[in-house]
């Protein structure tokens, strides 16, 4: 695996070029361009605010519901769009996969990189919202890059596995949107973690996305340290999934061109 990563690094220019291609291609010939990166989480935030805060009266404590939900919708959108683009990335580039060799993981990684840019763009709005709602920043905010890294590690693992399997079974194409929808409700995106019954919490938190979302809220909104136990578990699970998925990906890599 170490040699695979070294080889991958020697292709970093190609990786950047393909990520740039994905970004440029996505917003070419659209009027609003990268604004779409903001519109997507923003509109979700508005509808969830209406439904959960106004109709269902979900309690979020001192934090106003809009910023409460945007704080998790932002990384969740990054996760969801990463998988949506990364998993079919190999079959969408089948003409390259069958013709020219370079490390195939470049395609899912580039998709995630282009989604990361959207994530940063949409993050600008979040900064404005912080000012608008007068959210005080604490020192714990320095945890954010680390949480983002855990999330990316986890995303990479799922993306490697999914993009390799979809080459052989197109069923994955239908599983992804359904799975993401179910997954979002199994993750504290639109509701706070404390609504989860305590006896289920330890199982609930085995979902790495759950503790990642919880950690974002703690360090940004609640001025708390993250729950290190849960974040640690999330990191270990993500790392294991990443290693297994990457090894699996490299093992079946040479069969892609035949099966695609």
């Amino acid at each position, binding site marked *: 695996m170490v040699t695979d990563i070294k080889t991958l690094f020697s292709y970093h*220019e*190609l990786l950047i*070029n*393909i990520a*740039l*291609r994905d970004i*440029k*291609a996505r917003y*070419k*010939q659209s009027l609003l361009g990268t604004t779409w990166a903001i519109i997507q989480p923003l509109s979700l935030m508005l509808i969830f605010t209406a439904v959960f805060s106004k109709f269902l009266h979900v309690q979020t404590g001192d934090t106003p519901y809009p910023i409460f939900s945007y704080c998790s919708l932002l990384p969740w959108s990054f996760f969801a769009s990463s998988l949506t683009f990364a998993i079919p990335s190999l079959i969408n580039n089948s*003409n*390259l*996969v*069958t*013709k*020219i*060799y*370079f490390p195939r993981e470049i395609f899912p990684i580039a998709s995630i990189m282009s989604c990361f840019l959207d994530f940063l763009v949409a993050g600008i709005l979040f900064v404005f919202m912080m000012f608008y709602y007068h959210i005080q920043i604490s020192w714990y905010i320095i945890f954010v890059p680390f949480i983002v890294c855990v999330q990316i590690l986890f995303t990479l693992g799922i993306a490697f596995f999914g993009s390799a*399997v979809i080459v*052989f*079974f197109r069923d994955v194409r239908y599983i992804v949107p359904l799975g993401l929808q179910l997954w979002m409700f199994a993750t504290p995106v639109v509701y706070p973690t404390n609504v989860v019954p305590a006896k289920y919490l330890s199982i609930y938190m085995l979902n790495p996305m759950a503790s990642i979302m919880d950690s974002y809220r703690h360090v940004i909104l609640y001025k708390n340290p993250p729950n290190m136990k849960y974040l640690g578990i999330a990191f270990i699970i993500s790392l294991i999934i990443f290693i297994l998925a990457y090894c699996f990906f490299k*093992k*079946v890599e*040479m*069969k892609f*061109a*035949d099966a695609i």
Partner: protein
Amino acid sequence: MSKTVIKFENVSKKYHLGYMNFNGFRGFLPKIINRIISTQNNPFQNQNDGDFYALKDVSFELKQGEALGIVGPNGAGKSTILKLLAHTIEPTSGKIITVGKISALIELGAGFHHELTGRENIYLYGSIMGLRRREIKEKFDSIVAFAELEKFIDTPVKHYSSGMYARLGFAVAIHVEPDILLIDEVLAVGDMNFRKKCYERLHEILSKGHTTIIFVSHDIYRVQSLCKRTLFLEKGNIRKTGHTPEVVAYYYNEMNKAMILKDPKAHERRWGTGEARITDVYLTDSAGKKTDTFKTGSNMIITMNYSAAKKIDNPDFRFTILTIDGVEIMCASSVNSENVIDFIKGKGTVQCFFESVPLFQNTYTITVGISNTDGQIDFDVWPNATRFIITPTQNKDMSPYDSSLIRWPSKIFHCPERV
């Protein structure tokens, strides 16, 4: 001493015909796991499912600077060889060794993105081909100039014509300066001038001696002009390999046989009103012996028997010599000869004498026809009625380049400038 850069050792590539067939849910899971994990034979795959060898026990070797042509009918495994060389697929068995950077001219513009401009695509495609950003920057102007796309370089390539697309793809690929260049039937697009430029560029690259080229094409003439050696592939097996003219002649013969087997009447296929019919065509040497093999510079006689149902005034008897891929080399016509035929009625024979045939080693075909004086009405035209092979007699009869066809007597003088 140039080194070996490509080596195929007993390479086979096997595919399973058809898609997976699961025996209900019980067989489902093991098959899924097996299909993904197994590298070779699938124990769950029934032998009756039909294994199919895209390549079977293929071995060959290429040295640096050589060019190898690969010819063969559709489905022979030509593209499989290129994919194996490009390392996009793995052989089922055998060993492949390649040395150096490989660039593939397979399906030009496969790496292009429609929404991006020509400029953006040059950077993208260049990096796919293994160029660094700095290198692309250096070569950028030269690439654009070669593709003749200065005006359109900032236009999204989706607005390009297919020729422009191909030009840009070729221009980038040719600037990669790879150690091994794989070319698969791609130069058919692009207009005549651009195609010519491409081939000139390929010759130039070959002449430098660094780059090894593998050229897959149905254009026999191009194979002959570019490649000293050729490999004839059929159904995954090497049928013949060696010096290009010999392999090409053999290939043509085999293809002809196959065509006759498939369609015995193909040879008889002809057109015309039928007022006059060609009944037989054969070749004889100067001694009057029937043969189809001649030496460069020997005499050749084509004899045609005909029968005319009614009287035809001033008929034109034509004898056309063509290369095996259908390029007309010359045409002899009775209307233009000294002995004009006034009329024909009933049966007869027309002979065409060729003195000291100026053709080089190759296989040629003959098309014969009878039509009226101005060629408006064909009574009977028989395409590829017969074939002949020219073999070399002595060294000076050998064509200096494998693709030349005609020995045109010439003298070369040297006039050094006096100091």
